[in-house]
Each structure stands twice: as C-alpha cells, then as structure tokens.
C-alpha cells in the first residue's frame, strides 16, 4: 500500500543550526500517530515541513507519492495550538469553521447553502450544535478545541494534523479530545498529532514516533515506551511503569522533594510526616 505521507531522509536547519537530520518515516491511510519528543526536538518544524510552510534543506516530503513543492499547499486539515489563537478577534464559531472551506469557496462573501449545511452537520457531529452564532471566546476549552477540529474536518483533508491538542486544556477535556480523535480515526481519517503527554499517548494512540532531531524509534507505545528509548529521546532519566496492562511514564525524581527545598511551604502549617500517617509524602519534585 502506498503511504499517505512519506518523509525521505529529510533534514532541515535554521541557518547553521540543524533541527532535523535524516528523518525518514511513513504514515499510511487510516493511521493514528503521535509525534513525541522534548521541546526543541523538531516536532513543530516537522509539522511545518509536511504542511508545506517550510522546505527541507535535504530530502523530500511526499503526500500520496507526490513531492510537496514550494507554494503548493497539501490537502491537510490543521488544528493549531489553542494558545496561538487570538481569542479577542471578533469571529463566530460558524465563521471559523467556514474558513476550512476557503479553498472551495465561491467568490461571494456569504457562504453557499451547501457550505452552511456542511457546517451544521460538522458542528452536530462534534457535539457543537446550536453554537454556530457564538463568539469563540465564549466557549469552554473543549468546545474551542472541537471548533478548530471542525474547521479542519470541513476542509475534507487527506490528513488531519494537530499541534499539541491536549495542551492548555484540563485533564478531562484532553481525555475527551483524544476519544474524539480515536472515533474520527475509526471513521477512516488519518491523524498525526504532537503531544507532550506521554501517558495519554500510551493510553490512546496506537502508533508513536519518538523524535529528537532524528527518529529515535517508532511503533506501538507498548513496544517503544521503554526506559532506554525514552532516555535517548528525552536525554533524561525516564521511568516506565507497566501495571495491569497499562503503561505509565514519569521522569525520575531528582532525589530532593519540595520539603527539602521549602521545609514549611504553608506558613503556620507543619507538614505531616510520612511516618506519622503511613502514607508516602507527595512525590512532587522541583
């Protein structure tokens, strides 16, 4: 089967600083994959290369077997980080979602009846029915994330790309977003997302790519989330715990707890010692 997305020996640098070196990977139609790695590992640059806003200094990026060339934009639905959105901009949910139709839009400023219908269907599909006329700032974090997902879906993309969709939202919303993505993937949509949440990736994603300037490893989380691979990816001491068929990843504590740094964090309150109540002290490390 021909890969939907293929990076062949791709390198990229900003000036003399290399960001990506010899990256080769495939993404097949229907795959749901996460790109993980520390800050500065080149995740965002890799996304930009496949979105066509950056050009590789070496190698090539192919979508459906065709090389992405400068000035050509691939049929990719992109969901940016919520933190990059201008929430003061006077725009409604419907207007944001309609932006996804811009490639197919008529010359008239108003949306066609078909586009309006499509917006309503997409909003309903993502449980946003009735919010079309609301200002985007007036929504909850989860709803905001789904509005930008709706914009990406309405563009009928070959590939859905999300930049840290679980950043800046609470744990429950992040969980819901990942469930929704899994549901969309089951409907046949190919998804690539970046995330810093290794536990969420381990729990929800069938395929993970560990990146740190180069591809360190890729595969199912249960196969590649090992101490060795994660240490190499994050250049740190990572702890992998497997319990009851579940996988937890944690950075190893530095050997000093908050009590050593701040002996009495709450004035007038004496911390209860581990020995007194039988429970371990909170494992917060600074």
């Amino acid at each position, binding site marked *: 089967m021909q890969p939907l997305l293929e990076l062949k020996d791709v390198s990229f640098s900003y000036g003399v600083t290399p960001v990506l070196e010899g990256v080769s990977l495939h993404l097949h139609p229907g795959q749901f994959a996460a790109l993980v790695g520390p800050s500065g590992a080149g995740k965002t640059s890799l996304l930009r290369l496949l979105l066509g806003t950056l050009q590789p200094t070496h190698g090539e990026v192919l979508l459906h077997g065709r090389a992405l060339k400068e000035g050509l934009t691939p049929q990719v639905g992109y969901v940016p980080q919520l933190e990059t959105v201008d929430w003061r*901009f006077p725009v409604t949910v419907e207007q944001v979602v309609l932006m996804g139709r811009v490639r197919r839009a008529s010359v008239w400023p108003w949306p066609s009846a078909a586009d309006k219908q499509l917006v309503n269907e997409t909003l309903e599909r993502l449980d946003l029915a009735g919010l079309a006329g609301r200002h985007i700032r007036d929504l909850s974090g989860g709803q905001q994330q789904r509005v930008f997902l709706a914009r990406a879906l309405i563009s009928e993309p070959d590939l859905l790309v999300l930049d840290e969709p679980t950043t800046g939202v609470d744990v429950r919303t992040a969980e819901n977003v990942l469930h929704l993505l899994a549901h969309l993937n089951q409907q046949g949509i190919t998804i690539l997302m970046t995330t810093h949440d290794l536990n969420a990736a381990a729990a929800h994603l069938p395929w993970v790519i560990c990146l740190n300037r180069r591809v360190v490893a890729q595969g199912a989380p249960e196969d590649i989330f090992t101490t060795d691979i994660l240490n190499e990816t994050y250049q740190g001491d990572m702890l992998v715990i497997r319990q009851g068929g579940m996988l937890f990843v944690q950075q190893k504590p530095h050997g000093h707890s908050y009590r050593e740094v701040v002996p009495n964090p709450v004035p007038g309150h004496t911390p209860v010692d581990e020995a007194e109540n039988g429970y371990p002290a909170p494992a917060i490390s600074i």
Partner: protein
Amino acid sequence: MDILLQPFQYEFFRNGTLAAVLTGALCGLIGVYIVLRGMSYIGHGLSHAIFGGAVVSFVMQWNFYLGAGVWGFIAAILINQTVRRTKIGADAAIGVITTASFAVGVALISRYRRFTRSFDAALFGNILGVTWQDVFVVAAVTVLVGGLIFFLYKQLLFTTFDAEVARIYGVKTEWVDTLFALALAAALIVSMQIMGVTLIAAALVVPAITARLLTDSFNRMIMYSIVIGALTGFFGMYFSYYIDVASGATIVLLQAVVFGVALGITTYQKRVERLVHTHV
C-alpha cells in the same frame, strides 16, 4: 433652516463634504483590517511615505495620484518584504522606510521652496482645494477598494485572523497582502487632501476601534466602522465651517469624542453586568 443649510450653498463645501463622507467610509472599511491585524501604526507611516511620493511627483511633474500611488505601494511592499525576509519587526521596518520616504519629501521641499504652501495643505488637509475631479477619484477608489474587499472577503478574514494557518489552508496570503497594501495606499492618497498626512492615521484607526468596542461580530464591526467614518466625515466638515477650524482636525476630534462616548457606554455596561452577576 436656511442658516443650517448655508454652507451647502458653496460648491467647495459640497465637494468637500462628499469627499469627507467617502473617505470616512473608505478609511472606516480599511481600518477594520488594520486594527484587527495590530497594524495601526502602518497608516501613520504609510501616509508619511506617500507624502515623499507626492513631492517627488510634483518635482518630476508626474500625475500626483499615479506618482504618490506607486510610491506608497512600493513603500508598503518594501515594509512587507523587509518583515518577511529579515529579522526586523514590522514597527521598525515601518519606522525606517516611511520616515526615509518622508525625509525625501522634506528635503525636496527645502531645496525647491516655491511650493511650500501646497505641501502645507498635504500635511494638514485643505478642503477648499477639493474639486469635482477629486470627488470623482475618491468615489472611484471607494468603489474599487469596496469591491476588492467584497470579493476577497473570505480570504481577507482568514488572513487577518491567522495568516500562517490561512496559508496552510490554501489562501495565497502573499497576494492577499499585496492587494491589501495597494488598497491601503490608494485609500491614503485620496484621503490626503481632506485629512492631511498627519491625521489620516487617526481616521483609519478610530472608527474601527470604536466599532470594535461596540460589537463582537466581524460583519457588524465593518458596518459600524463605515457608518462612524462617514457620519464623522459629514458632521466634522459641517462643524468645521461654523467653528472655523481645519476640516481634518474637526473630523478626527469628532471621531475621538464618539470613541470616548462608546468607551464610556461599554465600560458602564460591563460594570452593570458584573454587578448583576455578583448579586444573582
């Protein structure tokens, strides 16, 4: 009644008022995109750049609109390209390019002192000099810019909201930016005679930010900004006749008053809403 209609007996006043209403509406329309892009300073800078072009046109005996227009357009493109291709920020690029262009105008004026008076008018506005031909040019530019924004509505909205993502979704943002720069340069040139170089920036920004205070809807913001621009153009001209103050200054002062009133009303409304929420 006759006293109220007295100024309209004069052709210069009728021409000036029509031009002020049209430029008010035009600046109101363009201003929405300027304000939402956080480029308020560009109106100020570009009008100064165009002043340089106007002086060069005069010296070289070129057509004023063509010379100043090409000059302004080149300045806008230079700013755009400097920001895109270098580490220099938009504010610094505007500062360097437009001030240098303005300096060209000042240098030429000091060299050829014979036309100092005409350029006083360009700097501070001169409604007495507005002819029917000028009104026709203002009307033509208003229709062209309005048409451009009408047909580029979706692309402009997306580019203004998030240019980088718009590019990913297939919007030719470089073309959109270039056409918008052309429209902005044209709007500034035709507004120069009414408002004067020094006051155009306010006419671009104030109606748009007033409209932004009054609504959270993009379409309503455009409508309010156009109406505020046109009405303050009309009444600013009208009051300037009776209080004998420069037309550009009166229009901008009236816009500032409207902004102050809008700010007062919206601040009061927010306070009331907060009180209601606290007590519910």
